[in-house]
C-alpha cells in the first residue's frame, strides 16, 4: 500500500519523516480508547479520560516539533515535504491520502495542537459536573484527529474528506447537550449550512477534475488534485478553458471556505453554534475549525493567485471585507456575551479572508495565528464568567466581575486589547498588515477595514465594561474559576501579548519573521509590505481610540452617555443590526416555506398520482373483471336476450347497408 512518494526530494530525510501521519492518529487512538473503554465500562475516572486526550494532543505536538526540527535542516532544499498512500484507485482515478507539510502547514499544526491542549485542560474544570464528561472528551479527540488530518492533507481529496469530518465533529459538539432542543437545532443548522458550502466545494473539485482530466490521468500523473501539482493543473485549466470557466471553478471551491469560515452569505450557523459548551466555541468555532476556510484559501493559492485569477481574488477580498463590517455591526447590539464574541470571530475571519483575497498571504495567516490565541482566550474567559455566574450568558445580568474574578478579568482585558489591535499586542501586528495591504490595493476596502477596526474596539470594550466593571447585576454569587481553568487562560495570554512582536521581525531580529517564514506558494505572490506604513498605522490608531472612547463613554461605570440615545436616534439601523440583517428569516423562509412546500407537494404527488395510477390500474383490472363476470351469470334468459339484441343490431346494420 505504501508508495514511495514524489513530494519528498531528499531520500535520507524520508526515513526520519516517514510516519508523520501519526500526528493525526494519536487523537484517533485516544478517541477509540475512550469509546471502547466507556462501552466496556473500564474507563470510569474522569482524570484518566482527560489525561488520555491531553496526552494524545501533546504527542501530536511533540511529534510535530520533532518533524519540524528535522525539517529545519532541509528547509532550504525542499520547502514542501510529504508522502502519499493509495486510498482508492479505480481506473485512472487515483485518490490518495497522506501528509504534506510546508511552513504554513507547520504553523497550523502548532496552533492547533497548542490551543487544543490548553483547551482540553480547561475543559476538565468546565465540564467536570457533566454526566457525559467522557463523551465530551472523546468528541474533542475526534475533532483533533479530523483537524490535524485536514491540515496535513496533501491533496484536495483528503482535504474534502476531513473538511466534512471537522464539520461533523462540530455538529456533535454543538449538539452535545442532546436534551436541549435549541442545541439540536443549532447543530443541524451548522451541519446543513456547511453542507451547502461543501456542495459548492464538491462541484468545484469535480469540475476542476473534469476540465483538467488529461492532466491527472496520464501515466506519470500526480495523485488526483494534489497540492504540489495544483499550480500546473491550474495553468492547464486556464490555457484550455479560459478565464471565465477558471473563475467559476475557483469560486465554486471558494464556497467551501465561505460556509466553513462563516462568511456572507453562509454565516448564520456560527452564532447559533454558541449553543455548544464554551470550550467548543473556543476551540472549534473560534480558533481552529472556522479558520480552516482561510487555510483552504491558502492551499488554493497556486490557483487563485495566478495571472487571470484576479476575478476570484477580488470576490474573495470583497466577501471578506463585507463580512467583517456586517458582523461587526451585529456585534454592536448583542447582549449575550458568547454571541457578541461569535460575531467578533466572524468579523475577524472576514479580515483574514479579505487579506487572502488581497494577496496578503502572510498577513492573513498571521492574523489567523494571533486570532487563534487571543480569541480562544476570550472565549475561555467568557466561559469562566459563565461558569462563575452559574450559567448566565446575558451581559445585562453581569457587571463588576473584576472584583470577584480578577484573573479572568485581566486576561479578558488582554484579549480585548489584542483583538482591538493596540500596539504592541499581537492583534496589532497582524491586523495592521491586513489594513496596510488593503491600503495599497483597494481604497474602499481600506476604509472598510479601518472602520471595522473602530467598531471592533467599540463592541469589544463594550463587552468588557458591561461584564467586568460597574455594579454586579446578577442574582447568584459569582466566583473565580479553579486553577485548571485559569491556568490555560494565563498561558494563552502570553502569545496573545507577545507572539506579534516576536514574529513581526522588528524587534527580535535573530528570529525569522512570520512574513519570511510563511510565503505564498509559487512565484506569483504579491510582495507584502515589510515596513510599517505610518499613515495607515496612525489612521487606524485614531479610529480604534475613537471606538474605545465611545465604549468608555457609554458603558464604563461613569456612563457619560446613554446608549439608548443612539438606539433611538438611529432606530432603523439598530433594528437592522439587532435582527442580524434578517438573514435567519430569509433562510428560514427558503427552508420552511419554499422547500417544505415543494416536499409536501412531491409527497402528495407520490401518494395521489403515482401510487394512484398504480392503484387505478389494479382497480380497473378488478372492475373490468367484475364487470365481465356479470356476463357469465349462467341464466339462459339473459344469454338469449343478448343473442336477440345482437341479432337485431346486426339486422338493422345490414338493412341500412342494403338501403344505401
Amino acid at each position, binding site marked *: 500500500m505504501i508508495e514511495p512518494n514524489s513530494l519528498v526530494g531528499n531520500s535520507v530525510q524520508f526515513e526520519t519523516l516517514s510516519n508523520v501521519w501519526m500526528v493525526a492518529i494519536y487523537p484517533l487512538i485516544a478517541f477509540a480508547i475512550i469509546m471502547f473503554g466507556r462501552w466496556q465500562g473500564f474507563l470510569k475516572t474522569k482524570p484518566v479520560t482527560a489525561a488520555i486526550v491531553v496526552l494524545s494532543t501533546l504527542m501530536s505536538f511533540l511529534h510535530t516539533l520533532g518533524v519540524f526540527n528535522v525539517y529545519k535542516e532541509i528547509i532550504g532544499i525542499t520547502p514542501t515535504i510529504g508522502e502519499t498512500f493509495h*486510498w482508492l484507485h479505480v481506473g485512472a*482515478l487515483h485518490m490518495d491520502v497522506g501528509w504534506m507539510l510546508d511552513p504554513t502547514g507547520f504553523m497550523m499544526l502548532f496552533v492547533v495542537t497548542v490551543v487544543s491542549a490548553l483547551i482540553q485542560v480547561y475543559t476538565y474544570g468546565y465540564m467536570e459536573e457533566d454526566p457525559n464528561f467522557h463523551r465530551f472528551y472523546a468528541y474533542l479527540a475526534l475533532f483533533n484527529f479530523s483537524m490535524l488530518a485536514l491540515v496535513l492533507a496533501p491533496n484536495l481529496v483528503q482535504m474534502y474528506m476531513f473538511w*466534512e469530518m471537522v464539520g461533523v465533529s462540530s455538529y456533535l459538539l454543538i449538539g452535545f447537550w442532546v436534551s436541549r432542543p435549541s442545541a439540536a437545532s443549532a447543530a443541524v443548522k451548522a451541519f446543513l449550512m456547511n453542507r451547502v458550502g461543501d*456542495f459548492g466545494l464538491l462541484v468545484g473539485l469535480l469540475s476542476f477534475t473534469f476540465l483538467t*482530466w488529461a492532466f491527472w490521468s496520464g501515466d506519470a500523473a500526480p495523485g488526483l488534485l494534489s497540492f504540489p501539482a495544483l499550480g500546473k493543473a491550474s495553468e492547464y485549466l486556464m490555457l484550455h478553458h479560459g478565464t471565465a470557466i477558471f473563475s467559476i471553478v475557483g469560486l465554486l471551491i471558494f464556497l467551501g471556505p465561505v460556509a466553513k469560515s462563516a462568511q456572507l452569505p453562509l454565516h448564520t450557523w456560527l452564532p447559533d453554534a454558541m449553543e455548544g459548551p464554551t470550550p467548543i466555541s473556543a476551540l472549534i468555532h473560534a480558533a481552529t475549525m472556522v479558520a480552516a476556510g482561510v487555510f483552504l484559501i491558502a492551499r488554493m493559492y497556486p490557483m487563485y493567485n495566478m495571472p487571470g485569477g484576479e476575478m476570484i481574488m477580488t470576490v474573495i477580498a470583497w466577501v471578506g471585507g463585507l463580512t467583517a463590517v456586517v458582523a461587526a455591526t451585529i456585534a454592536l447590539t448583542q447582549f449575550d456575551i458568547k454571541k457578541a464574541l461569535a460575531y467578533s470571530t466572524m468579523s475577524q475571519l472576514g479580515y483574514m479572508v479579505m487579506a487572502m483575497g488581497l494577496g496578503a498571504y502572510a498577513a492573513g495567516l498571521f492574523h489567523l495565528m494571533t486570532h487563534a490565541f487571543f480569541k480562544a482566550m476570550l472565549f475561555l474567559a467568557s466561559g469562566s464568567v459563565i461558569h462563575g455566574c452559574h450559567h448566565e450568558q446575558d451581559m445585562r445580568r453581569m457587571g463588576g466581575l473584576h472584583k470577584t474574578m480578577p484573573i479572568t478579568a485581566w486576561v479578558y482585558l488582554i484579549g480585548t486589547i489584542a483583538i482591538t489591535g493596540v500596539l504592541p499586542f499581537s492583534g496589532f501586528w497582524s491586523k495592521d498588515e491586513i489594513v496596510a495591504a488593503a491600503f495599497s490595493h483597494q481604497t474602499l476596502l481600506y476604509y472598510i477595514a479601518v472602520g471595522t477596526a473602530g467598531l471592533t474596539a467599540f463592541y469589544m470594550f463594550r463587552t468588557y465594561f458591561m461584564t467586568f466593571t460597574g455594579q454586579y447585576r446578577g442574582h447568584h454569587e459569582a466566583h473565580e474559576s479553579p486553577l485548571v481553568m485559569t491556568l490555560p487562560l494565563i498561558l494563552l495570554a502570553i502569545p496573545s501579548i507577545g507572539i506579534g512582536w516576536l514574529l513581526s521581525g522588528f524587534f527580535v531580529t535573530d528570529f525569522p519573521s512570520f512574513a519570511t517564514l510563511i510565503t505564498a506558494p509559487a512565484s506569483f505572490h504579491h510582495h507584502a509590505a515589510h515596513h510599517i506604513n505610518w499613515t495607515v498605522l496612525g489612521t487606524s490608531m485614531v479610529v480604534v481610540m475613537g471606538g474605545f472612547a465611545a465604549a468608555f463613554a457609554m458603558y464604563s461605570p461613569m456612563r457619560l452617555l446613554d446608549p439608548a440615545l443612539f438606539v433611538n436616534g438611529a432606530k432603523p439601523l439598530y433594528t437592522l443590526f439587532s435582527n442580524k440583517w434578517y438573514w435567519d428569516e430569509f433562510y428560514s423562509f427558503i427552508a420552511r416555506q419554499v422547500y417544505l412546500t415543494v416536499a409536501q407537494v412531491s409527497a402528495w404527488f407520490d401518494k395521489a398520482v403515482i401510487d394512484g395510477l398504480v392503484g387505478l390500474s389494479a382497480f380497473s383490472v378488478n372492475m373490468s373483471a367484475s364487470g365481465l363476470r356479470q356476463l357469465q351469470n349462467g341464466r339462459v334468459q339473459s344469454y338469449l336476450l343478448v343473442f336477440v339484441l345482437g341479432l337485431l343490431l346486426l339486422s338493422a346494420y345490414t338493412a341500412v347497408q342494403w338501403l344505401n
Partner: protein
Amino acid sequence: MENLPVYSILIVLPLLLALIIPMLPDRDRLVHTVAVAGSAVLWVLSAFFWYTSLTTPFPNQTIPWFPSLGINYVVGADGLSWVLVLLTTFLVFLAVLASLTSINKRLRFYYSMLFVLAAAILGVFMARDLFVFFLFYELELIPMYFLIAVWGGPRRQYAAIKFVLYTLFGSIFLLAATLGLYFHAAQLLGASTASFEFGSLSAAASADMAMGLQILMFLGFFIAFCVKLPMVPFHTWLPDAHVEAPTPISMLLAGVLLKMGAYGLCRFCFGWFPDAALAMAPYVVLFGVINIIYTAGVAMVQSDLKKLIAYSSVSHMGFVLVGLGALNVVGFSGAVFQMISHGIISAGLFMMVGTLYTRTHTRLIAELGGFAKQTPTLYFFGLLICLSSLGLPLLAGFPAETLVFYGAFISNAFSSINLFGTTLDWSIQTLTVVAGIGVVLGAAYLLWMVQRVFTGPVLPKWSRLPDATLSEVVVFCFLAVAIVGIGFFPSLVSEQYDLDVSLMANRYAKPLAEKALPEKAAPSDQEAAPKKAAVLPIKPATEGRRVSMASATVTHPLLRRRSSQGEPH
C-alpha cells in the same frame, strides 16, 4: 477443493436449513439457535470459499437440465457476484440475529421461509444461465410474500400482494427479453447449439443485433430491474412493503433484494447491450437524478419513520443509476460500491427503526423524542448509520458517492438529452450537479429525523424503555465494523470487482472515444490539447484472477462464427 461444487453448496445449504427447521420440535430457543448457527455457517462458508477463490478460482458448475431447449443449471461467480454473495450471507446472518427479538410467532415457518429467500437471492447472484436466473428471481417472491403477509403489520396483505404483483409485472418484461434474446441466439447459432448460458447470450447480444432490437431487449431487462431497484415511478410498492414487513425482512429487502435489480442492470443491461446503453445513458442518468432528488423531497415530509427510511433507500439507489449511466470504469465501480454500501447502511437504518419500534410500538416521528438520553447505545449506532447514509467520509457511504460523482463528471457519455422531441443541452455533468444537491437534501432529512427522534428532553411516556439488548448490540456492532472498515479502506471492496467492471467499461471506451473526436475538431477549441475525456486507460488485467463474464465472451464460438457469417439468415 477445486472440484468442490462451492456455488451449489451455498445455494443448497440454506434450502436444507429451510427443510430441516420445520421438522424441529417446537421449542423457540432451539429453533432460534439452529437458525443462528445455520446462517453463521453460511456466512463463514461463503467467506471461506471467496477467500479460497482469490488464489484458485472455482470453475463454473454445469449440470444439463433441458439440453434440447438450451437450459442448463449453470452457477458460478466472478468478483461482482462474490461481493454480492458475501453481502447476502452477511445480512442474512444479521437478519436472523435481529429476528431473535422481533419475531415471536410461527418461528419454524418463519425461518424456513427466510432461508428459502436466502437461497433464491444467492441463486440470482450466482446463476450463469439466464433461465436459472429467471427461476431464482421468481422463486424469491414466494417466501417474501409469506414473510410479509404472515409476520407483517396491519396492512400486510395489501403490501404483500402489491409487492408480488408489481414484481411479476416487471418479470413479464424480463421473460420476454430472455426469450427474445434466446431466439436471437438460436437464429445466429442454430437451435441445436444455442443456450441460455450467459456467455452464449451476451455474445449473441453483441453480435449483429439491430439497434432497434437491442434497445427493445435493453428496455425489457431495464423495466424488470427498475421495478426491483426501484426507480421512480415504479417505486410505490417499496414504502408499503417496508412499512408492513417485520424488521429483519426490511433489512433483507433493502439490503439485498433491491440489489438484485441493481445487479441485473449492471450485468445484463449495461454488460450485454453497449450500443443500446450508449443510446439510453442520458435517460438512465436522468431517472437516477429524479430518484435522488424527488424521493429525497418525499422522504423529508414523511410522518412515519419507516417510510422516511424507505424513501431514503429509494433515493440512494438513484446513485446506482447515475454511476451506470457514466459508462466508464469509475462510474461502474461507484455503482457497484453503492450496492454494497447501501446494502449495509440501509440494513442498519431499518434495524434502527426496528429497535425503536419494538420498544415504543409506534413509528410516528411526532410521538418519538428524547431517545439520545434514554437509549444512548441506540443513539450512538443510529447516528453512526445515519451519518454514513448521508455520505460522511471515513464511513461506507462516502466512497460510493465519490466514485459515482467523479465517474459521472469525467464521463463523456452524453452532452445533450432528447426529451419529447426537443434536444436539451443537459450534459452528464449538468445532471450530476443536480444529483449533488441530493447530498444536501439527504443530510437534511436524516439529521432532521435524528433531531426529532433522538434529541430533546426525554418524554415521560418513554422514560422506562430499556437500552439496546445484547443481540441488538451484536447486530449493530457487525454493521458498524463493516461501515467503518469500508469507509477507511474502500479499496478492499473495490478491488474485488475491479477487473469485472474494467472489462465492462472497456466495451464503451472505443465508442466514447470516437464520440469525443468530433468535439476535438470543433473550431471553437482552437489550441485544444488532446482531450482525453473519458477514455480511461484500463489497468492491464494480467493476473486473470477470475474467469470473468466478459472475457468468456471473447472465446465464445459465436464470435468466430461471426466473421465467417456473410449474409443474414
